[in-house]
């Protein structure tokens, strides 16, 4: 039999239901793995052992009473951007190093109600601003496939912990690619749902018109189970969608014959790593065998997405992060001489470099006299990008392509030039601007590091995306591979 950390959610649930293992033993297995392996990865910022054991005992009672649901007793860990009542919620920042959340995020509350066992909180780029998980106040997370490489970001702790078998499930958030890109770099599966599908309440805000929480796991089926518990309307989030949810597991086995896949020609231009291109091509051959039809589409304004994003996201961030003032919660400087000094030094000490850069760009873009040239213009470009997707998705059912132009870079490489790092999000950022759902799944390797395939769908097509990914995973085994050092 495979080890517990190599099993799918469905297999784990069968063991729990047949009483071959208890939720407590399962929790202890994963906590033990974190103790053994996480020193090499730094994927967890906080291990909540007592809470995990208490959650597990409660789950065992429910299971014994025959009242278990799909996720009862299943361990998971949250990206440290989700508020967890009574435990530290740092968002990877010194600013919140002392912050004990006074309430739970809706996502946390729902997963708790579903009977999951919370192992702890996962490392991330500070305030979710970054593509490598190196900007965390708690140090960089490393990629389990090669500890010289970054795991991607900002949900790098989530992706690394799943890839190394330290947790079967994790939550993530995606503002410009922060679920999909680390999923790709670490060889796991991650879904960014449609904007508004998963509640943002209690999820520390970066750019509110782009932020979206979603599931991360080894395979699409596990993501579907996790999304079932996460998704749905929440009156505490003013942009939560009232569109009814579906059972995201129900359509997993639907046949793919006749599926129309579009490949945007702009996603296969110069700058795409040859090994990545090859893996995507091989995946298309697989989809053709499954009965799909592959054709070219065009997203002509793709190149404008990163420039527009670096106005919209920092502008929203500068406004969102103004709440960190050293008065109500978070870091406060020592011995402030007046109120301005209190604000200025608390913020200067509490925020790291990348966060400061984005706050300043946003402040500049929104400052008097510049609004039309930057923010308004970026919002117009945003519509052009959304219109591109609408046009392409009227010709095909889904769009596929790479998640990132290359595989995970080495640690330290991206810190030299922020703009070069920003440009590596070229295939993920447009999706956030359009608010569409997109999934990343493992599709091979290049230079020994994992390659991700991206599947982009129409608004609220999560079920279809998970179905397509699941069918691919029935005929491939990329998602079952584990890095040697963590088997």
């Amino acid at each position, binding site marked *: 039999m495979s080890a517990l950390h190599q099993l799918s959610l469905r297999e784990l649930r069968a063991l729990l239901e047949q009483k071959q293992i208890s939720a407590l033993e399962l929790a202890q297995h994963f906590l033990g793995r974190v103790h053994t392996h996480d020193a090499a990865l730094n994927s967890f910022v906080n291990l909540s052992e007592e809470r995990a054991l208490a959650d597990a005992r409660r789950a065992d009672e429910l299971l014994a009473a025959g009242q278990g649901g799909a996720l009862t007793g299943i361990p998971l860990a949250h990206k440290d951007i989700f508020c967890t009542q009574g435990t530290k919620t740092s968002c990877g920042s010194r600013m919140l190093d002392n912050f004990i959340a*006074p309430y739970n995020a809706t996502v946390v509350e729902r997963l708790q109600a579903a009977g999951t066992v919370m192992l702890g909180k996962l490392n991330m780029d500070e305030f979710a601003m970054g593509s490598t998980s190196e900007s965390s106040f708690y140090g960089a997370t490393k990629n389990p496939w090669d500890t010289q490489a970054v795991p991607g970001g900002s949900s790098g702790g989530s992706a690394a912990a799943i890839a190394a078998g330290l947790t079967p499930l994790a939550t993530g958030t995606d503002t410009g690619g922060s679920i999909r890109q680390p999923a790709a770099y670490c060889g796991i599966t991650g879904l960014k749902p449609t904007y508004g599908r998963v509640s943002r309440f209690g999820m520390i805000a970066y750019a509110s*018109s782009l932020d979206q929480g979603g599931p991360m796991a080894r395979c699409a089926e596990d993501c579907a189970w996790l999304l079932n518990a996460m998704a749905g309307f929440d009156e505490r989030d003013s942009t939560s969608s009232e569109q009814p949810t579906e059972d995201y597991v129900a359509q997993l086995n639907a046949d793919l014959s006749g599926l129309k896949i579009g490949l945007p020609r702009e996603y296969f231009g110069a700058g795409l790593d040859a090994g990545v291109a090859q893996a995507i091509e091989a995946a298309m051959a697989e989809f053709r065998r499954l009965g799909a039809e592959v054709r070219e589409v065009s997203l002509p304004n793709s190149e*404008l997405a990163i420039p527009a994003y670096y106005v919209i996201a920092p502008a929203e961030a500068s406004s969102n992060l103004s709440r960190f003032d050293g008065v109500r919660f978070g870091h406060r400087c020592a011995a402030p001489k007046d109120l301005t000094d209190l604000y200025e030094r608390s913020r200067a000490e509490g925020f790291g470099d990348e966060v400061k850069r984005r706050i*300043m760009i946003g402040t500049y873009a929104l400052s008097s006299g510049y609004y039309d040239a930057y923010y308004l213009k970026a919002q117009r470009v945003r519509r052009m990008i959304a219109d591109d997707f609408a046009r392409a998705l009227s010709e095909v059912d889904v769009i596929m392509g790479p998640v990132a132009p290359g595989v995970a870079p080495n640690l330290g490489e991206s810190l030299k030039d922020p703009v070069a790092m920003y440009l590596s999000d070229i295939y993920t950022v447009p999706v956030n601007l359009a*608010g569409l759902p997109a999934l990343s799944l493992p599709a091979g390797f290049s230079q020994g590091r994992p390659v991700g395939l991206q599947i982009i769908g129409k608004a609220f097509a999560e079920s279809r995306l998970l179905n397509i990914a699941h069918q691919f995973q029935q005929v491939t085994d990329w998602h079952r591979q584990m890095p040697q050092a963590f088997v």
Partner: protein
Amino acid sequence: MSITPNEVKKIAHLARMSISSEEVERYAHDLSGILDLVERMNQADVQGIEPMAHPLDMNQRLRVDSVSESDQREQLQACAPAVENGLFLVPKVIE
């Protein structure tokens, strides 16, 4: 587009972040680089295009105008740096 050290100081003040003189040059360089990237937008012809504020063009929902929150002052102030009698303390503002 390049940002001058003086502009950096002004922006940092607007954002209420103190900045050391050694940092000013570096931020001027970094922010200018980011603005160069942003200005690639200028190649787009956006005339007549409606700005998009919300990804799905959804309307903002309004809630019923009634009390929905209970008093949680103590719980919410538990993580504040300095409080007294239910008030947040800051350095003296009015002489």
